[in-house]
């Protein structure tokens, strides 16, 4: 057990078990197969409760810290009825504005975006049977980046709603383009490999267009880069409202398709034998994951690492193999991780903010390596 490929073999075990093994793969199975099969594929209450508690703690910290520190009990006293709190003083007008208009939507949007990216990442990894698949695989990031660039250079003073809309539109167009290009010559539904290749070329094409536009508008670079680096500085309740329906639909479809995703992991032929239309299911979940990613990118910019780290950390730490089990855990852990990262991003160098992408990479990459070492013994 020494390479990433072997981690992949272990975590995508079902696929391994289902197909004839070559000689070299057998030892790997013997060391970890029994362990992986021993009940890791159901939702364990301990893991679920632990993540819920973690999420609640992270939310309370996120609401409380900032340039104006407000203790959690004062926030609690502000929402609970007077009778329950023994008439504790409410927050001042300024502190109410800070907690409920600035931090609360920010924490909620960060949580939703984190949940969306982690679920999308887990889905892409399962669908493409590729541990390095991330939510930006199908050109979503490049499309959103181009959409924002076009909006920034054409609209004279983009309002707070322009950029998310442009990002979402760009992401949608890019992934539609990828699916269109990835279709087979006969017009059939796309196979995973051709989708991947189409995603790579769409990304290259749109990135080139984006670079060209940026080159002609160097004076607008700051605004474009602040989107590309990601962040939740623009969080507001209306933005949370815009985001929620897309996330609800995307997450709903994925959670409902969890069992089908596990069947897909057996391979297309096996799935077909079990009555699952592999390509159609794959396209449906890809569409749902892409809606999640597009909405996440629209609200938070291009935040890297969450879609890769969260699912893998859960697979490795909790030994979860089944995508059906992984998805709800991803939602909780992704939300908690992103809220924590955003809290760090806005408090570390206060009064300035660091791009959250920097935090997720700085914290995420070493954490991921640590997890890999402990579980794989690199």
């Amino acid at each position, binding site marked *: 057990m020494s390479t990433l490929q072997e981690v992949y073999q272990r975590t995508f075990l079902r696929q391994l078990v289902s197909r004839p093994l070559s000689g070299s793969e057998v030892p790997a199975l013997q060391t970890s197969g029994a362990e992986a099969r021993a009940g890791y594929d159901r939702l364990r209450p301990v893991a679920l409760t632990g993540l819920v508690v973690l999420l609640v703690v992270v939310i309370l910290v996120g609401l409380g810290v900032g340039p104006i520190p407000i203790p959690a009990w004062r926030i609690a006293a502000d929402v609970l009825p007077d009778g329950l709190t023994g008439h504790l003083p409410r927050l001042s007008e300024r502190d109410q504005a800070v907690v409920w*208009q600035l931090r609360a939507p920010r924490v909620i949007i960060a949580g939703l975006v984190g949940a969306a990216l982690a679920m999308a990442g887990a889905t892409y990894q399962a669908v493409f049977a590729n541990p390095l698949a991330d939510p930006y695989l199908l050109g979503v990031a490049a499309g959103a980046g181009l959409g924002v660039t076009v909006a920034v250079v054409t609209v004279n003073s983009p309002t707070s709603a322009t950029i998310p809309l442009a990002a979402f539109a760009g992401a949608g*167009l890019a992934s539609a383009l990828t699916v269109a290009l990835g279709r087979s010559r006969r*017009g059939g539904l796309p196979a995973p490999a051709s989708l991947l290749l189409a995603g790579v070329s769409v990304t290259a094409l749109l990135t080139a267009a984006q670079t060209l*536009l940026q080159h*002609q508008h160097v*004076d607008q670079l700051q605004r474009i880069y602040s989107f590309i680096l990601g962040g939740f500085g623009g969080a507001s309740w209306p933005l949370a409202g815009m985001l929620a329906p897309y996330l609800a639909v995307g997450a709903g479809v994925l959670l409902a398709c969890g069992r089908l995703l596990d069947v897909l992991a057996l391979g297309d032929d096996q799935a077909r034998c079990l009555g699952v239309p592999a390509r159609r299911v794959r396209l449906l979940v890809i569409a749902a994951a892409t809606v999640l990613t597009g909405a996440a990118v629209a609200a938070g910019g291009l935040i890297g690492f969450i879609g890769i780290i969260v699912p893998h950390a859960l697979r490795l730490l909790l030994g979860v193999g089944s995508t059906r089990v992984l998805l709800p855990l991803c939602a909780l852990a992704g939300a908690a991780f992103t809220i924590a990262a955003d809290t760090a991003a806005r408090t570390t160098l206060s009064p300035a903010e660091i791009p959250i992408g920097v935090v997720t990479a700085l914290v995420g990459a070493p954490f991921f390596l640590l997890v890999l070492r402990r579980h794989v013994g690199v």
Partner: protein
Amino acid sequence: MNKNRYLLSVFLTFLALVGLVACGGTQEAGPSTTSTANQGAGTWPLTVTDSKGQVTIPAKPSRIVSLSPTATEQLFAISAGPQVVAVDKQSTFPPQAPKTALDGYQPNVEAIRSYNPDLVVLAYDPNSLTQQLRDAKVPVITLTTPSSLAQAYDQLRLLGQVTGNSSQAELTATAMRTSIEQLTSTVSPPNGKPLRVYVETEAGSSYYTPGVNSYMGDLLRTLHLANIADPAMTAGADANYPSLSSEAIIKANPQLIVLTNPVSAAAVAARPGWSSIEAVRHREHSIITVEADLASRWGPRLVQAAQVIAAAATHLQTAH
């Protein structure tokens, strides 16, 4: 057939996206260093010290190319206008300046040399433009964003010396200084407590504002106004052009907001959480706009920006 259609649609999408190009506003910020003259005027060759170091000007320039909107305004203000043959496309003032397609943000050596200049004035050198021009025996003066008003006045004097317009430059610098200092008396706070001011240069996920080590910060100080980006008010704020989070601005609670970007007072008031800021609560005269070209350039027209800010501050202080 299908494949061709897809390829065509890709190509058309690409063209459509590339075609969506329009112009945006200009904005300037950057590091700053001192610029002082060190020799008498009127004799060439002349060695001066600009923002980057010593420069020798071999002869009185008569074909000046300006790649900095501020330098363009400064040159015309000190009567060196007739010596200017080309200015960059961001140089929007004065109207008689010979505006060209030259781009101050992405300067192109060949394009600059086609004007056959005997002096190039820059604010910004993204690559090795200065070296390339000097290799071609074209003298280059770099005048970066100053960190104080005194440095802004010195830039005028330096340009006067280099172009042979020293006396006019001295007059312009003195007029600029006295105009700003006269404003000081109108805004001096009666009770000794300076008005808290927030100047916004760029709004995104966080807010960029001139710090205490910027010419705008110096202007506020000269006008006896308290800059909320002063580390005394906002701990940890960078001295040059800090970015402040919404929360830091709410905490500093400015009494006057000066917008130098295309954002409306209503949009500022609608920002989440900003309703508790004193300037937003009173709004009527406490959120003002200063044209970006006046506030983002440190030439003689900075006085106009100072007048607008001083008038608003005076109004607020008499009202309080």
